[in-house]
């Protein structure tokens, strides 16, 4: 399955509202945006009840009072605002997740480091790890170059950071301290065998990541280094 086909499948899953659950390790809890979406139901009920009451009163030949009409308009306005505006209640992370699912690019990725437990035969857990991904079209055609680069970058972890060029110090430090999630770091092309637009990112790795042509398939937002802008796709998506 090529990357374009995977992207189409993701779009289909997103339309079915299944993708968010597949990409997230755990439930984020109560979302204000979901609650605002739910509140549109009672809001429209309130409008309907009020309109029926006005209609019943008018059927007796009476003109509805102006304040009843204004009240109906106000209730309708609240209902429409909730109906159209509930996404405004999304947190920054929720907005980013939404953008990633809708506009994320499927790119090849290679594991740089991950907890040993990830490779256990009976592993069913998501584990934190670091991956190298590339937006360069060449990377999809030459996954081995990406995986070799991942190994070279992993080796930085054990080098004295005082002796490294500035752009490699950040990579070495991120791998060494091993804490996550942290901002992704751009990787210089010379460390990636000439592949351009490479990024070192911390992610949660699904127990069975989706593999495509010898590399992992990741969903990422170009030019966005925030930690939530990259996800490794689990095998279940295809």
């Amino acid at each position: 399955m090529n990357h374009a086909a995977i992207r189409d499948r993701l779009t289909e899953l997103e339309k079915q509202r299944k993708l968010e659950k597949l990409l997230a390790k755990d439930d984020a809890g109560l979302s204000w945006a979901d609650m605002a979406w739910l509140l549109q139901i009672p809001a429209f009920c309130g409008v309907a009840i009020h309109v029926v009451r006005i209609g019943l009163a008018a059927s007796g030949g009476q003109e509805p009072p102006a304040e009843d009409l204004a009240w109906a308009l106000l209730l309708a306005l609240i209902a429409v605002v909730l109906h159209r505006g509930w996404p405004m209640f999304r947190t920054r992370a929720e907005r980013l997740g939404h953008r990633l699912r809708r506009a994320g690019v499927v790119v090849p990725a290679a594991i740089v480091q991950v907890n040993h437990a990830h490779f256990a035969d009976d592993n069913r857990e998501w584990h934190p790890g670091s991956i190298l991904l590339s937006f360069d079209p060449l990377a999809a055609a030459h996954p081995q170059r990406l995986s070799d680069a991942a190994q070279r970058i992993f080796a930085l972890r054990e080098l004295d950071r005082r002796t490294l060029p500035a752009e490699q110090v950040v990579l070495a430090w991120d791998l060494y301290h091993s804490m996550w999630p942290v901002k992704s770091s751009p990787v210089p092309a010379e460390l990636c065998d000439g592949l351009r637009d490479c990024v070192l990112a911390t992610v949660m790795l699904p127990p069975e990541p989706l593999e495509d042509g010898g590399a992992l398939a990741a969903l990422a937002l170009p030019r966005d280094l925030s930690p939530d802008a990259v996800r490794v796709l689990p095998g279940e998506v295809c």
Partner: protein
Amino acid sequence: MGPPLHVVAATDEAGLRLLFQEQRARMAVVRDHAIWHWLGGVPQGFGSPKAALRGVHLQLGFVAVIAVALVVAGFTRGPVLWGAAALAPLLLVARDLAFGRHVRATVRLYRRAILVPVSIVHRSLDSTLDDLEVWNVSAVLSPLAPDPASFRRVLEAGARLRAMVERRSEVPGPLADLVDAIKSDIDPAHFCGSRVPLPEAIGAGLELARFVVPPRLLPDERLTSRLLFVFLDPGNRAPGHVRVAQPLLYGEGGESLSAAMPWEAKP
């Protein structure tokens, strides 16, 4: 930014300096990325699972009241509607009191926290927990950013005080009450993460901290060393402001230092 530190000896001045630098950088990573789960999470610091659940209930209550108000608005513009409308913000205020203030207090501690080594002088198993090996600990620390000199002072003061508590050395008269208090205190409520200044005879500027050591925060889930690393708010000695750090915060170098000072060995 230094070399990878896997083993650091207590006598290696340069190694210790690099280790404390590295630990400060690790704390900076946590702060810069607001990845508070490395310090215990939010609001677990000062809240409790019960408080978090109460917060969720109040949030649901707020939404339910708004929903009721929206439906009621179809029938009436009377007191029932305004009553419901007034109750909704009250529920949000109650949610903040039950939950939000714990979040703020926790984040305040995490933002100010520094990582320091502590020398354990006494430990007792928490008798209220049968299944888990949870230790209540009294330890000496210096509430300032550590350096090799302050580290040595903490170790020396800890060793001296531990010898007194274990009756291996004579207890000077002015310290008798303190030593007795450390030795006899087994009330779990006292190990609340608070600190008190120690008499100058033990060491100027040093403090005694009492806190709980949850096994999940220890390298092998067992307290085997007399050296631990904790994070604390230097400006606040109140309960909850000293907490055990997890290994990724003090690094392999810190782990090697702890491993080199087993509890069983007499300091």
